[in-house]
């Protein structure tokens, strides 16, 4: 232990006295570790954010959207010419499906609302038009009052279910049931309050107003070509596969997709998200590992070089140490520890840079960042291996020096 500390102290000393060479070497290690740890921590963070999305979709559910919700592949342009998935299309699909399932349809926008308390909200409230299956399929329980019913949808009722944030913000936390809110120029009676979901990825899930989709299509967004999101819930895995097949068939014929052409809509289930996702993560890891390994080999050669020069320059020092009783093993150990220390400095730098990078990424993309414990451990390991393997030869050379000749060296 004492030897390790001593080695580390000597290492810092020699790093300080060979500033340029050391900083170049440390930099190349930092780059290598950055590439490797950056990609592993990015994958960690993506994994956790994707698994949350998968949870939201639910085990036996899949959703149908015009454009991919989570896209890991490049080429957004081809989605722009797709026909919308209208509410009308959703209803046709619903009536043609033969397998038992729940078909939830939703469309949403963000706007401001006004309550009969006189308070107007910020324009950040998510107003969602839904059908009666929305609550079951999306696992959105009601805390108080009732949900949107089939009759509400059929009769285009002006009723609303609100989230907890809305209660707090425009009703000052008072019971909002049977109160009214105004969206645009329409008044809605509040019939229910959602159970609070809290925040996901830093965004509150409770700042919502839910109304019948028919009302939504008429009053909030009357653009007939606006696309809705459809989520279908089956009751078992085989049924899920069956419904997905059936849905694909029905949608292709309703949307006149010719045989051999690609689907002009997206089916998103647990499985194909994981598939897409693993293609993407393996791309990141291969790329990260490849560039990391190259950088680390360069760094390793750098370490070896700086250590060889350092052994040469410090021949006299080695002679002195041997003269006062350092054994070969001690000298070998000292130089290996020195190489490892230099690598670790680079490693810490690399991990820090990649963590800062990730935090920035998280800040701009809403992907929640996982503390990169994996990549820290990985970096510790890599740096130790790198330092000891590339530092071994110079250290061995140092340990073999003859004390008298080393002392005579000028």
């Amino acid at each position, binding site marked *: 232990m*004492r030897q390790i500390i001593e080695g580390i102290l000597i290492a810092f000393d020699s790093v300080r006295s060979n500033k340029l060479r050391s900083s170049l070497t440390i930099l190349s290690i930092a780059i290598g570790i950055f590439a490797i740890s950056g990609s592993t921590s990015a994958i960690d963070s993506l994994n956790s954010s994707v698994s949350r999305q998968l949870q939201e979709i639910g085990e036996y559910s899949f959703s149908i959207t015009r454009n991919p919700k989570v896209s890991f592949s490049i080429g957004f342009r081809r989605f722009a010419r797709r026909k919308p998935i209208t509410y009308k299309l959703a209803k046709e699909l619903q009536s043609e499906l033969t397998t038992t399932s729940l078909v939830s349809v939703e469309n949403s926008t963000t706007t401001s609302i006004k309550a009969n308390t006189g308070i107007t909200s910020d324009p950040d409230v998510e107003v969602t038009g839904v059908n009666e299956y929305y609550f079951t399929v999306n696992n959105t329980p009601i805390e108080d009052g009732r949900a949107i019913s089939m009759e509400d949808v059929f009769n285009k009722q002006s009723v609303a279910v609100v989230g907890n944030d809305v209660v707090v913000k425009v009703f000052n936390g008072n019971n909002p049931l049977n109160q009214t809110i105004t969206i645009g120029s329409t008044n809605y009676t509040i019939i229910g309050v959602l159970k609070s979901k809290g925040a996901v990825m830093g965004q509150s899930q409770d700042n919502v107003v839910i109304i019948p989709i028919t009302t939504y299509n008429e009053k909030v967004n009357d653009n007939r070509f606006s696309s809705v999101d459809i989520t279908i819930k089956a009751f078992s895995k085989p049924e899920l596969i069956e419904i997905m097949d059936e849905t694909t068939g029905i949608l292709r014929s309703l949307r006149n997709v010719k045989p051999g052409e690609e689907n002009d809509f997206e089916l998103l289930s647990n499985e194909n998200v994981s598939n897409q996702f693993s293609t993407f993560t393996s791309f990141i890891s291969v790329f990260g590992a490849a560039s990391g390994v190259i950088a680390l080999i360069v760094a390793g050669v750098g370490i070896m070089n700086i250590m060889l020069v350092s052994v040469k320059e410090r021949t006299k020092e080695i002679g*002195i140490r041997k003269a006062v009783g350092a054994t070969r093993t001690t000298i070998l150990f000292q130089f290996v520890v020195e190489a490892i220390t230099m690598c670790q400095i680079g490693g810490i730098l690399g991990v820090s840079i990649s963590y800062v990078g990730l935090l920035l990424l998280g800040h701009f993309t809403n992907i929640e960042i996982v503390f990169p414990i994996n990549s820290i451990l990985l970096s510790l390991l890599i740096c130790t291996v790198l330092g000891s393997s590339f530092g071994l030869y110079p250290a061995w050379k140092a340990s073999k020096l003859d004390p*008298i000749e080393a002392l005579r060296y000028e």
Partner: protein
Amino acid sequence: MNQPIIEIEHISKVYEMGSEEIFALRDVSLSIYPNEYVAIMGPSGSGKSTLMNMLGCLDTPSSGVYNFKGLDVNEMDDNDLATIRNKEIGFVFQTFNLLPRASSLRNVELPLIYAGESTTKRKQRAEEVLASVGLQDRMGHKPNELSGGQRQRVAIARALITNPAIILADEPTGNLDSKTGVEIMKLFHDLHSKGNTIILVTHEEDIARHAHRIVRLKDGLIESDEKNSQPTYYETI
């Protein structure tokens, strides 16, 4: 008298220079007893440093027997030699051989690091020895912040720190002016009077006269080995 610390018999050291063989030492025999104060003299190239390095276990003879405290040094491996250098021998060099970037304190505690001593013990002992050579207020100075005489004191403190059986000094005053040289010789005088065993290489008669026994080398051979009946004497401080 009691057992010799150092006992060499028929030691030779040969350097091969191409086809030529250079005898740095030829058939040298010598015994050094506890608390002796020996000066080794001789002209340049006579083999003084070669002999000292061998006695200090830094170098190995080409032939002959070397017993250190009764143990055969030729039988020892690298680790044993390192241990002897660490624990039993304090070497003082003409060129000081201090670590240039380390403070006096760190230079002095270096042997204890390799002896596996704890940090606190090391520091305490190093301060003690530095004080004993009169450098209590120069602990944090690096070698280039010290005078030549002070550097040699640091080197002597380093040689003393493990309480070695013998102190070997190869021209310790060679790089110093005569006044500073005398101060260093006073220090050796004190060490000897406290019971240390000292071997000192010099080619200055003035310096050699401090010792109680003078060995003269010439061309790798012992020319003479005599008692010095009237060594230069200092009042012990």
